[in-house]
């Protein structure tokens, strides 16, 4: 067969185009698979292995990766997470398979997830309580340890609540202090402020006294109790029970018990606060920050997007002006998000926020209130970014409304507004909803503009809380996407934090994919109706 004929028939060309599509699909499937595999496996209680090396070293930990041994052909090396950071200095060690003399999975090996210094691997000796001690070989040891950890956790919760109350009590003093400082710097008269400040301080002290007493008691109780545990090398260490978040002996666990640990770890991840500069613990503040920011964004973007779509589709004639509006929309959709971030910083934060500060918060300047990044500015910036998404979806919804329905309403004497409000908009509601959902999905995944307008690696408090005015629009916030960037690239211990980042990625992916799938389903239905409407 000649080359010419081969090219004319085009099997090769067709196959190449098919290969391109398959490649694209394989990439997305591969990406999702990797994320799901790493993230889903991370929280499962893996067996603890004890290795005895050729030189007599004993190691206890979890296997966390394998690689080719560069020194010996055909051999592998294993990466063991050995934890015990304060003793060994490093979380991981590479062990060459050829050096391993003995390998076992001891049933009495425990791992302790701690509030500080990461995981500890070892063999418990005894649990020392304030009055009595329980030996690790005693039958009630596991239950006693669990109970002690539970009690400590309860005390921690109470301590946190007390501290939050103390913070609330301190809030008026802090406000006055800021005004006082600013007045001092500016050289204004401070005598009245000083008296007010002293009075507020006295009131705070009075209210604080019983609180502090209770706090002292709690802390004393927290200091009690320690778990004496031996490392693989035989070194004994007493770890205060209050420093332990969870103690697991995975080698002796049944599958349901492992599942319970797995779910508990996921729950802690989703609902807990971060520890150890975000590399451990949970991501709740990031989830919360993302949700609140996206909600604020929706409040701003949906009305604007819907009005624009209604204008383009229902009110405007096809003229140069609407062409310009459409061009503006296309550009809003195509301009890089970082440009919006720069605009948000320059306009919202520095110009508008700085103006608000000069008008309403002059007494605390130069400390900015709104003149610095915050959740309000971030959500407004993202609202600008997502307008086209809402407009496009809403227009599609409006186009699915049969012209006959409009004509019918108008024929009955309804004004344009009445037609719109009573007939067209309800009919187009799925389109608007699709737009809102897609905008939320886009907003949840966008990071670059947020880096300029108010996202932080660790927010001291949520933007929504129990102190008036409850919703703090000026506060900085945490965000899932930024969390991934920050922990994956800026954290001091990237290697140890990597699985956590994968888990965060999974959460973000699930969120975005769910939103998009919902939108796609809604839109498919709408399109089916659109076909009918046109016919």
């Amino acid at each position: 067969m000649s080359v010419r004929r081969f090219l004319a028939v085009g099997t090769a060309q067709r196959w190449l185009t098919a290969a391109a599509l398959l490649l694209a699909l394989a990439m997305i499937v591969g990406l999702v698979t990797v994320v799901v595999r790493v993230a889903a496996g991370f929280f499962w209680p893996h067996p603890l292995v004890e290795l005895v090396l050729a030189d007599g070293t004993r190691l206890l930990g979890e296997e966390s990766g394998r690689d080719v041994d560069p020194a010996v052909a055909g051999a592998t090396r294993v990466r063991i997470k050995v934890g015990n950071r304060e003793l060994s200095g490093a979380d991981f060690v590479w062990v060459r398979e050829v050096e391993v003399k003995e390998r076992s999975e001891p049933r009495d090996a425990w791992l302790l997830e701690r509030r500080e210094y990461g995981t500890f691997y070892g063999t418990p000796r005894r649990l020392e309580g304030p009055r009595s001690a329980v030996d690790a070989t005693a039958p009630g040891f596991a239950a006693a340890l669990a109970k002690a950890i539970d009690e400590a956790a309860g005390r921690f919760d109470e301590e946190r609540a007390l501290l939050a109350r103390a913070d609330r009590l301190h809030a008026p003093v802090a406000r006055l202090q800021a005004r006082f400082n600013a007045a001092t710097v500016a050289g204004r008269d401070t005598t009245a402020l000083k008296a007010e400040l002293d009075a507020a301080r006295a009131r705070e002290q009075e209210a604080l006294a019983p609180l502090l007493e209770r706090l002292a008691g709690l802390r004393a109780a927290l200091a009690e109790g320690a778990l004496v545990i031996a490392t693989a090398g035989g070194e004994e260490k007493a770890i205060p029970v209050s420093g332990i978040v969870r103690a697991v002996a995975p080698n002796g666990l049944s599958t349901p018990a492992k599942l319970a640990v797995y779910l508990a770890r996921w729950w802690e991840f989703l609902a807990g606060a971060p520890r150890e500069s975000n590399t451990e613990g949970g991501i709740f503040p990031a989830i919360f920050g993302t949700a609140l920011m996206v909600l604020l964004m929706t409040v701003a973007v949906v009305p604007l997007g819907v009005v624009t779509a209604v204008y383009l589709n229902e009110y405007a004639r096809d003229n140069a002006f609407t062409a310009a509006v459409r061009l503006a929309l296309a550009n809003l959709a195509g301009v890089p998000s970082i440009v919006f971030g720069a605009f948000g910083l320059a306009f919202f934060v520095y110009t508008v926020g700085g103006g608000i500060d000069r008008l309403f918060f002059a007494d605390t300047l130069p400390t900015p209130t709104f003149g610095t990044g915050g959740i309000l500015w971030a959500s407004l910036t993202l609202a600008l970014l997502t307008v086209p998404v809402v407009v496009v979806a809403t227009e599609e919804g409006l186009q699915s409304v049969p012209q006959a329905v409009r004509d019918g309403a108008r024929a009955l004497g309804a004004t344009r507004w009445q037609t719109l409000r009573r007939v067209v908009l309800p009919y187009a509601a799925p389109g608007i909803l699709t737009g809102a959902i897609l905008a939320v999905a886009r907003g949840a995944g966008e990071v670059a503009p947020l880096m300029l307008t108010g996202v932080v690696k660790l927010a001291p408090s949520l933007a929504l809380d129990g102190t008036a005015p409850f919703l703090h629009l000026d506060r900085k916030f945490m965000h899932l996407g930024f969390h991934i960037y920050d922990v994956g690239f800026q954290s001091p211990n990237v290697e140890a934090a990597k699985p956590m980042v994968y888990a965060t990625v999974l959460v973000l992916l699930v969120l975005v994919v769910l939103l998009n799938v919902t939108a796609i389903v809604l839109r498919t239905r709408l399109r089916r109706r659109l076909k009918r409407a046109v016919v």
Partner: protein
Amino acid sequence: MGNFTPSRLRRVRLVDRLVAGGITAGGSLVLLAVAFLMVFLFAQTLPLLGGGTARPQSSATAPDAPLLAFEDDFREGVIVLGADGVLHSARLDGAGRTVPLEGARPPLREAVLDAAGRLLAIRDAADEVQVWAVRVKVGWESGERRLEPTARPLLRRVGAGLGRLLAAGGDVDAPVVVAATASGAAVLRGSADAVEIRLGTPAAVAAISRDGRELWLGAARDLSVFRLDGEAFSPALVAAVPLRRPPTAGALLLGDTTMLLGDAGGEVTAWQVVAGAVAGTRMLDAAAVFTGNGPVVALAPSPRDKTFLVRRPGGAELAHLTSRRVGLELPSFPADAVQAGFSPRRDGVFALTAARVVHRWRLEVPHPEATAGTLFLPVRYEGFTEPEFVWQSTGGSGSFEPKLSLVPLVVGTFKGALYALLFSAPCALAAALYLSQFAPSRLRTVAKPAIELMAALPSVVVGFLAALLLAPVLERHVVGVLTAFVVLPLGVIAAAAAWEQAPLAWRRRLRPRGELLLVVGALAATLATVAAVAPTVERVLFAGDFSAWLLASAGVTYDQRNAVVVGFALGFAVIPIIFTLAEDAFSNVPPSLVSASLALGATRWQAARTVAIPAASPGLFAAVMTGLGRAVGETMIVLMATGNTPILSLSPFDGMRTMAASIAVELPEAAFGDTLYRVLILTALMLFAMTFVINTAAVLISTRLRKRFGRLAA
């Protein structure tokens, strides 16, 4: 029907009209927002264009026979040293205060101040050289701010036999004074004997670095640099260079690497020490020459940046080293000025005249280092021997010279975008062609939403995986991956050719779905072959280590986070954009055209090649352009996967820094209103302009396309 009262109808009509107005206004808001965004960003960069202003301010009165003057940090007054040996603090509102230099015998003969304005060297009536540490404190007295000059004696030496005092420098613990002598210069430091440096002719100008360790001496015929190191304190010659004209003025710019020499010909030359031709040697090189009218009388360096003041008989002007810009003449500069200088914060200039007046100007030159030249042309920075494009916006010290060339960022941006397009454009266009022309219809219902989901994947996720998963893998298997890219298409073509040889009966039975399975098989077989062969290829061709081979044979380094990784990752983000638009373009081609072609006997490929692709080609072009726009502006992926080094290199194995990543990293740190802030906003504006052009073109193309085929379809 009481409902239809006239008043109610009127109200309904009014509401209708109000709503119509409101909706029209709301609809226009989007247009306004984009226009405002553009104008606002532009307005933020406008101050970069202006050269700045210098406005005369109220002047102060100096005491009799003034020697020199300096200003306090807040420019609330001027401190003038008179020949009477007293520091007169002249507040501008008249309330003054005087501090005598105890032990200095009037009338003082001469005085010099160091560049930082902390050390004052004088020679008194008894020919004694004294060094004083001077400061201006702001104090309060019955609710009034007062300027309080303080002076502390540091050094007293007999000055007999010394010529003119040339410079003071060093710090308060080890002040250094240089004076001219008949055959060169003498250096006074601490209690040691004065050290004489022989130059042949008396030194005319001198400058001492702020750490007191480097001494520049300009004499009639040459300029030399000495190091003043060690306990023995013997000046060692570092480098020297002959001069064309005798220097009339000299000043060491902030940072102590550039010595400015002015001469009677009106030229100011910037001298820098650079590495010599022979390793280890150093030589003096003229990095820049500034010309002007009239001989240079004096030079004064700015205490904050690389700006300096050039005094000539007819007036004075400001110039800036980095931008090589001379300009901004000081209006009505006195002809009888005896001394002039900058305020400590470089927000003003003063000039002291013999007629006992201190003239003052308010200086607003906010961005002297950013000009079209420094932003887009190569610049020879301090310490460089050639003009180069460098982006290095911040440094460790206040004397750092910001290097704000946007060229490496622009090049990095397009390098990343082009590598991305190289991978994504063929892939996405081919996939769109397949899905719209050849694919089984069941596949469409799966593949389209899947690729839409691909578009929805947050770029931070793609960037994270690219940097922490793909980059290390690619580093180890770079040969295999690059081979796969060449071999995969070949494998598919070979498989297709083989299939053509298969019995006709088999081929007839093949449905599109079966064809897809065959392609999957061909891909898998090729991949497996590449995976099996790649290690051997690497061993044979590249001695088992590609990056080492690359460095040894081509001198190219292999960065782990490089343009190939970015190409992949950005390509991943761009594929769905191009795909969706290209698919739209193909779908807009009326099916009747393709059907007609098939009916005339074309194969499906021929129909696609001769009808569908040409008809859709403007749309395909628009799709690729839109993809380019997205790749140019993508931030998180390049931020995470490029390594962010702003180097100017086209090698696929080097990293880069893009405009978007620079904005993301540096804008939050830049102070509102300063040069870096405005330059980064300018970068954002450039990104905006680029994507604006690209998007507008894409929109126009697709609108025309729709119009053309709209008629055809109807």
